[in-house]
């Protein structure tokens, strides 16, 4: 017995011992990787379903748009909103409780999912010492990661923290600035000042790392960084810097679409990834499908008869006499929130006007508008003064950049100036709801479950 038993034990041990190493190292699922290489990191950042595709629920820009005066809902349509649209329904009437205990708010979760991907990539890249030939790819990956994270932080700051005010920014609560991939790291709110500081610092670094252009429209580039910086400074009311960065952006990329070449008969006339886009980003939310949200009638009337945006952007809704917005730069019903050359022109124009450079301001405005009007009908805009130019530029800004979430940012910053302050009014079931300038409701509450998990400070409402 002893011999045979020992022999067998020996055999078993040999089998187990000898082939354990290599044989069990074979991958179980061939499609799965542990991201370690430079290519893997770039692949994470190129996962555009999360990073910048229209089908994702990035959602913050559209959540921002929910509070604007670009659209209105008819009572029966508003009443029929439910389920995933519940918090849009509440946000529409500036309700105190928006989430009603909703357990999954994409406007918070998805931007932070983007942040998580970029942190995984940034930590992975930190461990890679690139060979000289790989340095450009490494720079590109790090630049993309910093850009995507900054873009997410920017939008989160527009929705979940108070408008930037230089005197209180150091103590106003901002957003959690997560910078590690460790999912167990606690989330705490930085100040508004820290939030903007980090967005600016990271985007500037990204601008140094990234190339001037990319064969792939979904990837961030130098002009995309400058465009984002122009936005950030605009939100902060720093018009000098905003103008400078808009200018840097346009130096590198200034292609405008000629709306005369667009077929307005198509349901969504503007195509995805078109030449005017510097960085694409979009979010689909069914509140803004053409049959729900109707374009604000005042907004619609602002477009001149020969302004092609009137037909490219808007379509009549049945027999209602109202119009829906169909001009998304995503080529779908999604809210486009990316950077375009047109946005940079109008931003630079505003900054010139604020710097009393009336000529340069109007030149930028007219460069843009000639591409928007029917050939041969455009009369260049003139102004009596730089202030008059500013009024006209801000009106054009609203017309050019509607339904991009940007109106919310503009309302927040312009309301501090009594010349441009507006009160937003909603009417549902003959009850009127208003949002006066500077109201605390210009900051949305943080989803209740996030407060429960993290114990962070809630926004007053």
């Amino acid at each position, binding site marked *: 017995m002893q011999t045979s038993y020992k022999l067998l034990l020996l055999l078993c041990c040999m089998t187990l011992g000898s082939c354990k190493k290599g044989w069990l190292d074979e991958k*179980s699922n*061939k499609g*799965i990787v542990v991201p370690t290489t430079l290519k893997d990191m770039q692949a994470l950042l190129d996962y555009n379903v999360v990073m910048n595709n229209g089908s994702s629920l990035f959602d913050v820009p559209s959540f921002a748009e929910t509070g604007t005066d670009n659209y209105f809902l008819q009572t029966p349509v508003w*009443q029929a909103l439910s389920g995933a649209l519940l918090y849009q329904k509440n946000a529409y009437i500036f309700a105190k409780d928006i989430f009603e205990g909703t357990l999954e708010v994409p406007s918070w979760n998805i931007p932070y999912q983007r942040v998580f991907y970029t942190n995984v990539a940034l930590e992975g890249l930190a461990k890679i010492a690139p060979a000289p030939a790989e340095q450009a790819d490494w720079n590109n990956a790090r630049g993309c990661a910093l850009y995507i994270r900054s873009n997410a932080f920017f939008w989160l700051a527009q929705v979940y923290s108070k408008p930037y005010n230089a005197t209180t920014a150091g103590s106003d609560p901002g957003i959690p600035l997560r910078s590690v991939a460790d999912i167990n790291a606690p989330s705490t709110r930085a100040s508004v000042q820290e939030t903007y500081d980090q967005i600016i610092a990271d985007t500037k670094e990204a601008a140094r790392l990234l190339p001037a252009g990319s064969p792939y429209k979904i990837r961030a580039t130098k002009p995309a960084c400058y465009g984002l910086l122009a936005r950030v400074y605009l939100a902060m009311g720093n018009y000098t810097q905003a103008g400078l960065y808009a200018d840097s952006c346009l130096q590198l990329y200034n292609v405008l679409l000629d709306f005369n070449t667009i077929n307005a008969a198509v349901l969504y006339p503007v195509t995805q990834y078109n030449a005017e886009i510097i960085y694409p980003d979009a979010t689909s939310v069914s509140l803004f499908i053409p049959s729900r949200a109707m374009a604000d009638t005042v907004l619609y009337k602002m477009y001149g008869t020969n302004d092609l945006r009137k037909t490219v952007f808007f379509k009549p809704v049945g027999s209602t006499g109202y119009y829906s917005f169909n001009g998304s730069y995503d080529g779908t019903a999604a809210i486009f929130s990316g950077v375009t050359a047109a946005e940079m022109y109008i931003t630079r124009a505003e900054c010139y006007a604020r710097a009393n450079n009336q000529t340069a301001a109007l030149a930028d405005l007219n460069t843009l508008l000639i591409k928007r009007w029917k050939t041969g009908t455009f009369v260049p805009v003139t102004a009596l003064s730089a202030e008059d130019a500013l009024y006209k530029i801000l009106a054009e800004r609203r017309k050019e950049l509607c339904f991009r979430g940007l109106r919310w940012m503009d309302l927040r910053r312009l309301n501090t100036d009594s010349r441009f302050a507006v009160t937003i009014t909603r009417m549902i079931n003959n009850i009127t709801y208003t949002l006066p300038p500077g109201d605390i409701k210009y900051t949305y509450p943080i989803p209740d479950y996030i407060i429960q998990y993290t114990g962070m400070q809630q926004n007053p409402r």
Partner: protein
Amino acid sequence: MKILSLFCALAYWIPVSAQTLPKPVTGTVINSQTRLPVEQCTVTGKVSGVATITNKQGWFSLPASPTDTLVISHIGYATKLQAVVTDGSQQPLLIQLTELNTELEAVTVNTGYQAVAKERATGSFVVLNNDLVNRRVSTNIIDRLQGVASGVAFNKSDSKGTDEISIRGRSTIFSNATALVVVDNFPYEGSLSNINPNDVESITILRDAAAASIWGARAANGVIVITTKKGRFNQKAVLDINSSFSVGTKPDVFYVPKMQTTDIIDIEKMLFDKGYYNSVLNNTTTYPAVSPVVEILQLRKTGAITQAEADQQVDALRGIDNRNDLTNLAYRPSTSQQYALNLSGGSQGVAYFVSGGYNRDLGSLAQVNERISLLSRTSFSPVANLQLNSSISFIQTNAAEGIYPGSASVYPYERMADDNGNSLPATRSYRKGFISQLQQRGFQDWSSYSLADAKLTDNTTKTNEIRLALGGRYQLVKWASLEFNYQYQQQAAATRNYQAQQSYFVRDLVNQYTQFNATTGLVTARPIPLGGILDKAHSESVANNGRLQVNINHTSGRHRLSVIAGGEIRQVRSESNSLRLYGYDPLIITNKTVNYDSSYLTFPFGSRSKIPNAPSAGTEFLDRYLSGFANGSYTYNNRYTISGSVRKDASNYFGVAANQRAVPLWSAGAKWDIDKESFYKLRWLPLLSLRMTYGYNGNINKSLTAYTTALSGTNNFNLPNALIINPPNASLRWERVQMVNMAIDFRSRNNRVEGSLEWYVKKGLDLIGSGGIDPTSGVARFTGNVASMRGTGGDLQLNTLNTTGAVAWRTNILVSYNTDKVTDYQLVPTAGAMVSGATISPLVGSPVFSVYSFNWAGLDPATGDPQGYINKQVSKDYTKLVAPALTDIQYHGSARPLFFGSFRNSISWAGLSLSANITYKLGYYFRRKGLEYNTLFASLTTHSDYYKRWQKPGDELTTQVPSLIYPVVNNRDVFYSRSEAMTEKGDHIRLQDIGLNYNMDKFVQKRLHFRHLEAYVYINNCGILWRANKNGIDPDHQQVAPPGIHYSFGLRAGF
């Protein structure tokens, strides 16, 4: 074996005396169970002392006086006495011998590694012998465990639990909860419906740590070991045939109570007047469909028709209920045919078993399921110490999907066909007015014909399985043998889904991608070409298993030692891929190419999309396991047994840190046969023993890894991209289940009462839990070893022999009790999530599957609004009511039965036997579906509770259904539908089945030289005898109608 042959040899030499020679008595000796002849049997006249031996046919002839008594004896059988004159006739005698084994040595249990005599097994085993396996008529082997296997629960109505069958309750929260199934030594990969039940000899269920631990890391949920039949050496060739035909009733489409069409129409009219459909009716870009009634109302509103016309058109629809069409035109009774043929036998050195089976099931929609199975098992013994076994199994299945036509027509007043049976168009995605003007622009007809569509789809799946096994056992010495087993299993499945050009699916897709001139509106191009669409999917898996083990069985004096030890290696490689062909013509087998790279403007949504289902690389998996195991038992003096086992598994599960790849598991057990002690004096209880075991089983979760892992793909710029599927978790471990089992076995004198009572406690340790993370971290869910749970329960098995004699009446009672609770969980779920029950929300102290509800304060007497409690105050603040504190919700109990089992009675008399099985499930809760205004308005999902709704003050005394309000308050519906008012007790008792068998052996053996002939009738799903809920709901089938009564008729014959 040797003793037997020696005895037989000696028996030949017993002289047959020939004195006065009375008339010879003739007869045949057969085995009472197998009904096979017993040869070499000694037949002796008690008075005369004359003896003879039966021949190969079991036949004997012996001169004996009419007053003499025959003594029939054979080693291994109980000796029988038989009077020579039985009835005065000179008919040959038929003498049945009962095998001693079946009485004394009872049963052997098969663990998949060895067969152990149950009397020396310390663990908890349930054995279903061939009679029990055959009791039920079904094409699926697993169905045959239902109601006859102690501790095995069938969880029919759970959508969230993945375990259709659970053995002794649940042992995990989120990981794999299905039991391991072993067929002939090795884990069975693939569909169990492939196994032909007629090939199955027995099924053993391993329920506790000692029984299952030999299966190590896959044993936590219990193991079902299926053993197929095989031939025996020195056995006459026998042929068995079994054939049956079953028919089942049509599904009851009226089971879920709904509103009458006329009232649904009134709801739509009310909604129309309130402007509910305005946004849809105003949508002139995509023209989403509205119901025919809304269409008529809109025509009236725009003035296109008069009020009288509108009323007349609407009234014409009021009497229609398209469920009638579903019953009359789509459904038919299901049928099932089964044929099986087995041939087995053996000579000195070879034993064989060959079987063939054919099934054909026709479902109540046009589904067809066919199975052809062939099995051949051979054992041969070329030299004395060596036995080789080989087995070849081939199974082919063909399945054709049935298309449920009801999903396309949602409006109850839309008929599927006219009175002549012609298919009628149904309202589907777009408005009819929109569709009708498209055809002249060059689009395909966009109408949906639900009934006709079912015939335009041909969705078939063909599977092939080949299993080859080779094994050998070499007896090294008398008490030790070396054994090897190898099995190769290949499974391939090919699905072919052809949808003709006329099918809605094809027309819809072609239209969506059709390009047209923006000014003229005329069609310019079709990126998706006309013609059918063929989807082909192929999957294949190949499993290789090898095992080497040594078996030791040593008896010396009062010591008996039994040990197995060995190693096992296993690899499963599987891959799958799919392919779509556009513009497919089945007649000439051609297809058209499409451009997958371009994005096209889709109609009418206007977004740009690429053509779907571009060729992709498919998936490929490779699972590897390496295991070492040892299992032993030692018995002293036939009354004290101890056992133990160890096993270590290692696998290549990706991303698990190398030092955590292998998991060691062990068990120990003891048994005491009290009845064999000298002090034991209870003569009425000849069998009494105690057993106890303790040990660990493992459970694996393939979805988790220790590192950040990502799934590779390609984005729309053809760039490689990666989706993070798992955040890092460095401390990941495999789940373990610790289990203690205590049991008592007993049997009274004459087998009147026999059974066992077992009690167990099991603890799930290091269980994988999920949830509990701040979404700001970027992941919405975290998964890790954060949980533990504890289960306790017991299983009582009681078999009684109530009458003996001509009428034998037996009762088999199974009572199982199981309860579990989560003992450790990091995350406290929200009360809302627990009440909703949509996902598993573990709460420390409660069962994994629990039923919670919102506290109910009745209806508001003034408005009929549902009311609940906030801080013990009656409230209608629905936002708060649906997100209450944990202390403010009601815990009802487990969502799975605490008690379940069966009560089976069999009565047999002269070849006739009747058996009926009553099953029950007790001590659990479920939530019924009722009326929700939200879904009533949005999708016309109706419920007859509508008629019970609160309509005027005073109604609140008789009803709990809230009043109808507009606009809908979402949370008002949510609160009501998840409140106490909708919670029901699940307890019920069911007459599962009735079987009637008529055994004609006596007749056929005399007249037709058959060995065996039996006719049977089997009625399944007889119905519920008692239920706790008052709403007529079958708790096992809440959403869809329970299967109707199923009748089977069959014949078994043996030659």
